[in-house]
């Protein structure tokens, strides 16, 4: 699997570290326990395109948001993650 890093170009999977699903957003401090539970533990498991965070650890050390098809591992899109 190769990931098209927006800075370095297409790079081998071995250069990257996987964080996980890009969708969860940290709930506000005033949120109840259910919202925190969902944020920490609940993840979708789609068969198809999935947005996820990858870290280019051996390259430019940028965090990326990668859209990957979980059925084929085809990388559809990669962009620098918003800070």
């Amino acid at each position, binding site marked *: 699997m190769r990931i098209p890093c927006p*800075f*370095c*170009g297409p*790079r*081998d999977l*071995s*250069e990257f570290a996987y964080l996980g699903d890009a969708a969860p957003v940290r709930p506000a401090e005033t949120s109840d326990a259910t919202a925190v539970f969902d944020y920490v533990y609940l993840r979708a498991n789609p068969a198809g395109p999935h947005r996820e965070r990858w870290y280019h650890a*051996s*390259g*430019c*050390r*940028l965090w990326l948001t990668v859209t990957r098809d979980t059925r084929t591992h085809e990388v559809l899109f990669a962009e*620098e993650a918003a800070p």
Partner: protein
Amino acid sequence: MVDLAARSAFDGLLLPIGTGQGVTVHEPAGLGVATILAGPDRAAFAARVRDMFAATLSSGSMHIATPAISFLGTSRNVWLAVGAGGSTFAADLARSLAGVGEVADQSGAYGILDLTGPNAMAVLAKGLPIDLDSSAFAEDAVAVSHIEHIGVIVWRIPGGFRLATPRSSAASFWHWLSASAAEYELGVA
């Protein structure tokens, strides 16, 4: 008081395996290495670099060579600078970029090796997950990657490639290089 003598990263490690007909390794002496982080005023930074070094740094993994310094794009608004000057290189660079960018001396952090010869690319192909063919790795390209879990920065020089790798892993890196280049009669220049 103890006097400390400067030692290069690969001092005592580079022993020839063969005649050097396929690939030759050389550790250039007297180089200084520094990282540059552009300040928030990107236009002022670019203008200063243009004025001081006659170089236009683009955002990308590209190698911009001037007679004095090689600028290697390693990340967004970050460059590795390599040039002559040894221990004063980073301080001189910091003075030149004062107020527009941050400079950190890395001269003691990296070992530099030049790998040249007709089989230099074949040797690197054994460990580097980067296609170094000219169709994929342009003349001004830079690759920040790894070999055998050791970080390495690779760019082209006439007849081969220059590698920057962490000094603390010099012995391990040499182990990989000497084993990988043995079949090509690795020589030391």
